[in-house]
């Protein structure tokens, strides 16, 4: 065993792990330059910098937030809201983000009624927690829950029973919250209108009847895409087709 450990340490010495700093140094620089560009009101440059980082780098909530800010400054409300919403999936309680998103929504032209389902009302805390946070919380509860059951196999004391009951309740709440969030994340079909104004048609053809018009920043629900057209609907059940390039899903594929 000792010999194995020695060999392992030697191997580690000869084959060190890839230098994490070297990898992140490039990102640091891009991040720094994008921030600099933003401060100097070169917003297009900032957008490119943040976008590059998101595509190839760490993809975190703060980058989406910054990208949203840069779009907002270039008066592109649609992409701004899109990126704020993406940031909200990861850093839902960030005060700056919520302020800016609220401000951006105030600039929108369409008033879309929002409906809250039963589960959203019952699990009201889901909106304030990211999937990662919920998972971490549930993972800890999961370990504790099975841990106490494991302990009870050998130690049947009264306090272990009460601890088991408490953990069972939290485990059920945590598990159902995590499951629901997971389901929400998997089935999130929200998309943001990116163009200043788009016509929603009765069919996937420019000659079809215009049903209604939507403006940038409006959130629609995406049903399916066909030949460069997307079928979308609003919470009040208005439905229609729109050019796919005019809307973008909040949920990213990767």
């Amino acid at each position, binding site marked *: 065993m000792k010999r194995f450990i020695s060999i392992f340490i030697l191997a580690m010495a000869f084959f060190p792990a890839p230098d994490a700093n070297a990898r*992140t140094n490039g*990102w*640091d620089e891009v*991040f*720094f330059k994008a*921030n600099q560009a*933003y*401060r100097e009101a070169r917003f297009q440059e*900032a957008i490119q910098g943040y976008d590059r980082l998101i595509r190839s*780098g*760490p*993809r*975190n*909530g*703060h*980058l989406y*937030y*910054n990208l949203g*800010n*840069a779009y*907002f*400054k270039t008066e592109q409300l649609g992409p701004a809201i899109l990126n704020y919403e993406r940031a909200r*999936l*990861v*850093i839902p309680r*960030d005060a*700056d983000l919520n*302020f*800016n998103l609220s*401000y*951006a929504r105030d600039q929108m032209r369409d008033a879309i009624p929002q409906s809250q389902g039963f589960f959203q009302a019952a699990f009201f805390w889901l909106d304030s927690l*990211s*999937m*990662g*946070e919920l*998972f*971490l919380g549930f*993972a800890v509860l*999961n*370990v504790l*829950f*099975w*841990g106490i*059951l*494991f302990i*009870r*196999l050998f130690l*049947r004391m009264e306090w272990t*029973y009460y601890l*088991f*009951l408490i953990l069972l309740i939290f485990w059920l709440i945590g598990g159902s919250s995590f499951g629901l969030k997971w389901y929400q*994340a998997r089935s999130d079909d929200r998309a943001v209108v990116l163009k200043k104004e788009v016509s929603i048609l009765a069919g996937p053809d420019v000659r079809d009847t215009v049903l209604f018009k939507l403006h940038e920043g409006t959130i629609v629900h995406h049903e399916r895409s066909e030949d460069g057209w997307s079928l979308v609907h609003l919470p009040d059940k208005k439905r229609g087709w729109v050019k796919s390039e005019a809307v973008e899903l909040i949920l990213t594929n990767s």
Partner: protein
Amino acid sequence: MKRATIFLAAVFLFLILPLPAHADISITLRLDRNEAMLMDSITMLVKLSGVRKGDSRPVLKGLESFDVTRTGTSSRFEIINGKMNSGIDYTYLLRPKKTGSFKIGPAEVKVKGKTFRSNAEILKIAEPVRSSGTHRGPLFLKAALSSRKIYVEEEAVYSLKLYCRKRVGDLSLNLPESEHLAFKQLGKPVEYQGVYNGESYKILEVRYSLIASEEGIYAIRPSRMNMTVLESRRRSPGSLFDDPFFSMSSRRPMTLDSEPLELEVVPLPEMGRPAGFSGLVGTFEIESGLEPSRIKTGESATLTIRLRGRGNIKRIPDLKMPDLDQIKIYEDQPVLEEKTDSKGLTGAKTMKWALVPEKEGRYRIPPLSIGFFDTGKHKYRTLKTRPRSLDVLPGEPTRVQAPAGPDKGKTTEGPAKKAVKEIGHDILPVHASMKDLATGSRERPGGLVFWVLLLLPLFVYGGTLCGLKIGRKSADSMTAAKAKKAAKDFIRQCRQDDLSSNDLILYITNYFNNRFGLSLGSLTPDEAAGIMESKGVSPETTNKMKDVIKTLEDAVYTGKGYDGCEMGENIPKLIRQMEKEIR
């Protein structure tokens, strides 16, 4: 996905919707027992078959002499041999009000205009058996008074002690009600361990202050305590469900009565009653203070009088300050502090006056007095404050400030408040800190760590549980193998030559131990007979074995234990017979 949802919804609806009854309508009434004591509670089940929820509720007859509580309703749906049957069970709890023999029922239910009747049951209610002597059983309630004779408005302490040696819950107490008697709980109930007539009990004690407003002899009826006695019926030991969470604990409602008590309340004596007596009864003392005792004209001094003690403190009157020459008097709102401790009601009343002299000089503040009936000394007493003097020096008149009371706090006013007005609108800046690059990147969990954290604890637990089960099973199977071999081993041992009584009795004991998984050091004829009977061996074989063991025992105890014994040939036959008969 949609199809699965529809299927699940259909199953759910199928389960929750009331289904049409296909069976005949019937109604039965059942009591959990037909004889009970006055303090007991009886469970009654009215079982309706072939009806749907909402059809009708049963009307119960013959319950005039009982307090009836409905404890639950449950719907039944069963399919027996392809035949659907639904029904509703109503459960009631009956608490008898008097003794006697009562006809309970029938219960009646009307469905579609037709009346269905159940059977009736006879229930006999007897007086609770008061065990003579000292033994009081595992649960009983005792009441006591701190004093059997008190004055009007004097306080006595009524204490109730629940002695229990069983687990109880859902306690509720009904205190006896009587006109002119007021109960007030003293603190929280206390729980402690105690001994009653040599037996250890857990005691729950609750105390009440008892004040009578009228004279007379009061018969304090028993206090009644309702509770649920928890008696756990555990599952097989070692099972996964062998813990209180899964155990089937039976909950038996129970009512306990304390003994009735008598309280004599005598009037307060007329003799020596001070003028303006407020009805204050108890033990009290008075203290006073003047702060400051030297002031300038226009300034104020505060006279404080505090009366504190034990008794009916709500009767402490507000003292009146007589008018004083050249002094303006501002009376503050008196403050009454009421407390309870284990001995009764205590408290204090604080009265304050702001005295503002208009001229310099030396002023005498006269004593103030209050009369009360001292229950310790059984006579009226008058408490007086000490006379105080106030020296007033000439000075600039200043603002008079009355002593700070609950309603007279000093208020400060700041600048007028205005709503914050927004001047400009913009978004907040970007997050430029380098640490933002490293945080907030967990968008969706996944990968190996995710599954390990979710499933590993479950596998570890499941594996350990299986291991323990297998270990236990193998121990059981070893015992079974031993039992199987026991007879063979015994017969082989009996084939030896020169067997003594000592050897035989040892072999028989070993056989019983191995055959039935016992660990007996020695085996008496009665023990052997008991074991054999419990295993279904016929009385004939049992008696034969009993005789054999007795004969061998006799030989051992009469010093012939090492002599040769001829029974070695017969016993194997007996054992074979026994093996055939064992269930």
